[in-house]
């Protein structure tokens, strides 16, 4: 016992000595060598993408990856960017802050020059400072919580319409169908709560009267409480901002409970699974707010074909956004003529009416989409898939 501290001090001295030796040796990649984080100037240009490949959201990861990969392949096919090939580096963020930060650091270490990923707002937020510090511009395809741009980091761009814009589309539609009273339900995830809040806000501004704003716990089965509430309050339109699983259940249970208003869902719920879960005869008055998907745009069949060939599966949510994210970033680098942070950011800001699935793209001052390009989709009773119903252009 009594001699313990002596040994420890000796050890520490040894440690210090060893440290110094190695420090002076200055190994590459180590502190001595001052390992640099910025990407190299030869070889392919690396785009990094953080997306969920494990955890509850893992389905969306593949949609995003394949979309981006398709864009990369196409760009490489006609000469790449700045005469260099593009390479897509994908990391898992599991929708969890810890994993996301590790992944982001891994991308930085791998020397990516641009980030085209980000699905869960909660997992994307902590990665912003990392990419910012490393001087890596981000074009975020899916995550679109307003908090992402609130920090006003120079390199952060959103090409998925923000909650505000989607909520605006929802409100516009409500007015269009002449709804008087509306309600909002979210599933307590960052994006969903955000969207519901801004829907309620804008609806109130638009003079609609908001019956109630409810929050449910995702991952359960029984939502009879909120269903009953809907049946009792009978709003003309209810806006569900969460994902399709709970969405389908709520739509079904609400109808069983006797609710017969319009069931408007956010983009998280726009998926063929919605109809399956809700079941036959529960989807007549289900509509959704969504950015256009290729099957809604004439002449996009070729794109779908290409995607399906690449991925072996049909495109899903955020495939197009990821595809566009890569193209936007590539274009900006092309314009900037280099992968230098400031130049690329300037390039992104300078983009004018760049053609994307969501229509011509121009970034606003706060680096979000000017339009948002949200449309109203409805469920096709035959296939259960969502199809374009109203592009809200008039």
């Amino acid at each position, binding site marked *: 016992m009594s001699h313990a501290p002596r040994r420890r001090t000796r050890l520490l001295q040894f440690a210090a000595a060893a440290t110094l030796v190695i420090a002076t040796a200055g190994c590459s990649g180590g502190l001595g060598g001052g390992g640099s984080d910025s990407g190299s100037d030869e070889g392919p240009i690396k785009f990094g993408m953080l997306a969920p490949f494990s955890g509850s959201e893992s*389905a969306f990861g593949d949609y995003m990856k394949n979309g981006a990969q398709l864009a990369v392949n196409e760009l490489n096919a006609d000469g790449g960017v700045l005469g260099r090939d593009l390479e897509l580096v994908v990391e898992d963020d599991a929708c969890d802050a810890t994993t996301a930060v590790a992944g982001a650091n891994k991308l930085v270490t791998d020397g990516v020059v641009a980030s085209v990923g980000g699905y869960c707002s909660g997992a994307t937020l902590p990665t912003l400072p990392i990419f910012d510090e490393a001087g890596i511009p981000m074009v975020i395809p899916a995550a679109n919580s307003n908090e992402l741009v609130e920090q006003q980091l120079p390199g952060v761009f959103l090409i998925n319409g923000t909650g505000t814009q989607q909520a605006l589309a929802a409100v516009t539609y409500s007015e269009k169908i002449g709804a008087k009273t509306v309600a909002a339900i979210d599933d307590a995830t960052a994006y969903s709560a955000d969207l519901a809040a801004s829907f309620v806000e804008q609806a109130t501004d638009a003079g609609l009267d908001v019956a109630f704003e409810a929050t449910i716990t995702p991952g359960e089965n029984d939502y009879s409480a909120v269903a009953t509430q809907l049946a009792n309050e009978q709003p003309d339109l209810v806006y569900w901002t969460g994902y399709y699983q709970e969405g*389908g*259940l709520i739509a*079904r249970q609400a109808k069983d409970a006797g609710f017969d208003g319009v069931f408007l869902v956010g983009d998280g719920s726009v998926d063929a*699974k919605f109809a*399956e*879960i809700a*079941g036959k005869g529960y989807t007549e008055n289900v509509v959704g707010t969504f950015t256009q998907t290729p099957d809604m745009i004439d002449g996009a069949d070729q794109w779908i074909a290409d995607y399906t060939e690449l991925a072996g599966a049909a495109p899903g949510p955020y495939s197009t956004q990821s595809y566009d994210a890569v193209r936007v970033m590539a274009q900006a680098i092309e314009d900037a003529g280099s992968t230098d942070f400031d130049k690329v950011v300037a390039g992104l800001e300078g983009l004018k009416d760049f053609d994307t699935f969501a229509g011509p793209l121009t970034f606003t001052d706060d680096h979000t989409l000017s339009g948002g390009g949200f449309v109203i989709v409805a469920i096709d009773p035959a296939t259960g898939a969502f199809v374009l119903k109203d592009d809200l252009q008039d």
Partner: protein
Amino acid sequence: MQLIWNGLIVGSFYALVALGYSMVYGIIKLLNFAHGDIYMLGAFVGFFTLSAFGISNETSIPLLLVIMLLSMVTTGLIGVGIERIAYRPLRNSPRLAVLITAIGVSFTLEYGVRQLFGPNPEAFPIRLESSGFDVLGMRITASQLVLVVIAAVLMLVLAHIVERTSQGRAMRAIALDPQGAQLMGVNVNRVIATVFFIGSALAGAAGVMAGAYYGSIDFLMGFIIGLKAFTAAVIGGIGNLYGAMLGGLLLGLLESFGSAWFGGEWRDVFSFAFLILFLTFKPTGLLGARVVERM
């Protein structure tokens, strides 16, 4: 009124799962964490067989019953297997070890299913047509009625087994005093296996019913309901079957009202807080045997 009815529906699910919990706990004092996942497993067995036959959007009740029996047998056997592999070797080791094993089993089941069927929720192929009608202020749907009836039948069957048959007597004997029962020539292992079979079968049935009623199943559906079922079992007095049923219904009602008053997001907080208070002041539950006063 509506709240009460909703509560009863959820409660009957809790009760079915809680029964298994309570039986297993009563007989080998093991908190079987994996029980909720057996429930999930039941749903997936049903899903698998149905989609294997390419059935989808079916609405026939007989088919539902067939499938239910099938997955009851399957989950029952799985339950027995789990007991044999994971729990029996540890019967004489400290509780902590067995508990941790149970958690391990639970993880294995959940993520095993996840690997087999993928992380996304699946739509259950059988749906009960649910034309709603109003009775004294409550909106009741046919599917809900079917559900309650099946649950009630299952519970009655169980009650009969435990009360009337020799197996049941053996169970109660072991629950009271394992060594004593063994001395009396009861084949403890066989009885415990039976208990696991029955408990798991009930959970499996509940799983199928949930699938048919709600329509969507996923690999984590068992976790929360497992916790709730345990809460129900404790409230009713763990180890006591009628307690489990009572507790299940009670918890269902509590949640139904709780989420109506505090809002859905606080529902779990509400029921867990209730559990904690309950355990603090009446650890033996409503119908539980009163333990001797000691330190």
